[in-house]
């Protein structure tokens, strides 16, 4: 019996450490996006002040991301988590004229049926990210006009929503900044600045900084996937399956940034849209980078990797 107790403790210890480290290691070099929503346990903790619907939504988004990267997908679990996230998604759809409450279940059904699973996986995960970004942008917008307790609540909400997209910040740190924590710590700092802001200008300054980091992360994501399109669609012997996946990823990321780009530079919007969606238009990373930099107040140097 005593050996059993010792073993129980050892097993607990071993399994605990497995939860802190990478839960799943792919058999080949990991696809960037498959791990995009994987998070460590700490980032799943919601801010205590946040309203339950947003906490539940952020938790559900993280869980769906993790469940979708499992080798054997558990659809009852995914559907259960989606049911939790759905009310918030429907709310965002009605505010922003998006249609994720239809697109995401359709994509999930396609994955279940084994149809273009990888492409549809990206539609789900990036669609959820877009919903989260729209949520954060809405909260930032309200924050500037808010005071006192209302402002505190909004900041807590922003922090909660950020947990759902934090893996993308970390992932870009890995892929763009060679593993050097850059975007994620900067986002944390901007959130801390939001919390400590005492005056309206200080609040606006921190909100601008966070909003810019959000844009930068997604612009880098678009460019990262465009390099993938160049590789898989542009070579002499393209790989149509991977090309389609990369175009989907870039397209979904671009949906997140498209309104901001179109608002600032219609020509850049048209050019990037064509690069991503036209079958024969293989994007030139440098050209896309320059368009995005000009449209969104970045320098080409900021977006070069």
């Amino acid at each position, binding site marked *: 019996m005593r050996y059993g107790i010792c073993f129980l403790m050892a*097993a607990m210890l071993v399994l605990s450490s497995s939860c802190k480290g990478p839960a799943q290691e792919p058999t080949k070099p990991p696809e960037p996006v498959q791990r995009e929503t994987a998070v460590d346990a700490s980032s799943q903790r919601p801010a205590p002040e946040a309203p339950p619907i947003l906490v539940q939504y952020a938790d559900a988004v993280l869980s769906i991301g993790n469940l979708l990267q499992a080798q054997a997908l558990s659809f009852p679990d995914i559907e259960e988590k989606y049911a939790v996230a759905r009310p918030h998604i429907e709310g965002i759809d009605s505010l922003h004229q998006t249609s994720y409450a239809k697109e995401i279940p359709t994509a999930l059904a396609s994955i279940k049926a084994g149809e273009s699973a990888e492409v549809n996986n990206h539609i789900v995960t990036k669609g959820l990210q877009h919903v989260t970004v729209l949520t954060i942008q809405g909260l930032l917008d309200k924050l500037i006009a808010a005071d006192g307790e209302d402002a505190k609540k909004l900041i807590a909400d922003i922090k909660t929503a950020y947990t759902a997209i934090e893996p993308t910040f970390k992932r870009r740190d890995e892929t763009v900044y060679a593993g050097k924590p850059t975007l994620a710590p900067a986002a944390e700092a901007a959130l801390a600045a939001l919390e400590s802001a005492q005056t309206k200008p200080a609040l*606006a300054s921190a909100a601008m900084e966070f909003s810019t980091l959000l844009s930068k992360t997604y612009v880098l994501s678009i460019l990262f996937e465009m390099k993938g399109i160049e590789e898989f669609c542009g070579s*002499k012997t393209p790989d149509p399956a991977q090309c389609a996946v990369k175009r989907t990823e870039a397209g979904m990321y671009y949906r997140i940034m498209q309104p901001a780009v179109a608002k600032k530079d219609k020509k850049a919007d048209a050019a990037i849209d064509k690069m991503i969606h036209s079958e024969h238009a293989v994007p030139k990373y440098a050209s896309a980078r320059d368009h995005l930099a000009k449209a969104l107040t970045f320098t080409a140097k900021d977006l070069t990797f």
Partner: protein
Amino acid sequence: MTRLRASLFLILALCACAEPPATPSTPELIEASQDQLTIAWEGQASELEYWPLGKTDAVSLVSDEADTRAHEVRMGGLEPGSLYSYRIRGAKEVYNAQTKPLASSAVSFVLFDGVSQNELLRQLVSDSPGFMMSLSALSRTSFDELRPFVAVYDPGGNTAAYLRRQPGRGGESGYRIDWGCLVLAVSDDPAYLQKQIDSLTSGYTLGLLTTEESADSLDFGPLQKHLSASSIAPGFVLLRDTDKTKERGGVRFVGVKAPNTRYNVLVDPEFASLTELPAGIQTDLRPAPLSTKRTCAECRKLADKGAYRASVAAYLAFIESNAESHLVDDAYFEVANIYDEKLFEFVEATAWYDALVNTYPKSGLTPFAKERLKYFRGFEAAELPALEEFEKIRRVSFLAASESAQDELIEQVLRRSDEARNSTLSPVMLYWAANQLRQKDATRAVALFRKLAAQYPDDEQAGEAVYAAAETLYESREYALARESYRFALAVTPVRKNTILAQIQRCDRNLRRRFLVWPTSIVVLGVLGTSSACRRGHSRKHWKKSAAVFLGMSLLLAIWAWTIREQFPSDTVLASLAIGSAAIAGAAPSIVGPIAEAAFRTTAMRVAAAGLLVSLFSLSGLYLLIWTTFEHYLMVFGL
């Protein structure tokens, strides 16, 4: 009374002698150029720290040498069109400001009248406009929270308090703001505005903010010489005293008089629009070539219906009847695209792409046409029919085919590749076929990749093929063979060095894991065998205890694992690991106990031996359990 007067005098004297407040005033953005931002403030601190937004590790310092309380400093060495953060040294508040964008850049600014500072701050955060313009005169203190971030103008000019104190302000009858591709002239004086029209430089868009009466007297003729290739007038007029909109001489006059309103104005070299916020009602200030392009709706409809030849005919008719239109380049591209993508007639497609590149070299579609031409020109003209057939299979037939039909198509492509062995197309087809076989028949795919590398060593795909062969072997879990292939690939494609080295390490790790299965199996089987051979032990009492431990631990581990179920790839893995671990823990003491009892006489020796054996048995059992269930968890052991 005298005492009261004396007290008052004392208080006033103390106030006069008191030190000025240490906290600096809210700073103001005075001027922005492409590489400098000028900031002014009042206070004792005369130094300013600044850094590119988000990069707090790149802080620069600038100070005002003048011995005054009013300071003006220039943050230098900046990049155009970028956001920078700054802070007066010693103060807590950080502000952001934007440098002037390049002349070719699209820009946006905000027009407002009678709205709150909060609304404008919201706009600042969401849109980062270049500057803000009030339609009516502003007081000295209004909108002071905006001024650290953007320059705020009114009809009289920049409203910064620091500038209002400068002598000579208001001497001109108007002023202009040069921001990116926009030149915005603000004045009610027709002479001043006419001067701006006459002196406009090509490539810029002129915006005039004035009154209806002044605008009506202007001559827009000189603007015609700056007409862009797409026939768009390079100017627009914003009328601040009316809400009417009209057009004259190809120039739009848009009335912006509306109380409590803000507008976002977007200007790029070919387009300008004004959006009323928050309603989002958009008015074009210049007709937009991009939004009006592709107007041959009928041609597009035909293509969408699948009537490709009819669509081409419609486009040809459109080109003929709209030869001078700025939409023709779009039609050229569409015709080429239909031949290329839908009809797979590459000779025709090449001719149309060529025509587009030669006739409209500045078209936005020309780079895409060049890409396709480059692709087609990689093949001999005689190869184009075979390329058409191959592309049709690759992009249409294969995707629509059943699995057996797909196999037949792969064979067909391989036959064509063999027939055209000396052509440029042959390795392309071979690579494609091998790629499709990776999942279906790894051995054959590897053979084809190797065949490609051997037959076409100079082809740019040879290195890729060697790497793909190694990848295929890895995916089929042939780790030893994959490792050799990766080593070979390392010599052929050194550009992938890091990826290949990582894959070699993975092969080594997987082989190590496989190797460890043998000693751990021997331990588990050895212990089980020895235990069965022991005459003593294995009493029912022992097994009851084991069963109790097993059940209790299964339950505990399963509940605990369920709380972190996202960490498991599936419920089956979760259950297998929980039950398996519990089984090992429950059975180990009962299995090992009899061996220790049989081997040693003293209790101390028995306990030591049993402890050692339990550890060995449990670790081996756990290894085998994880290896068979989900081997990636072996990373926990550093394996």
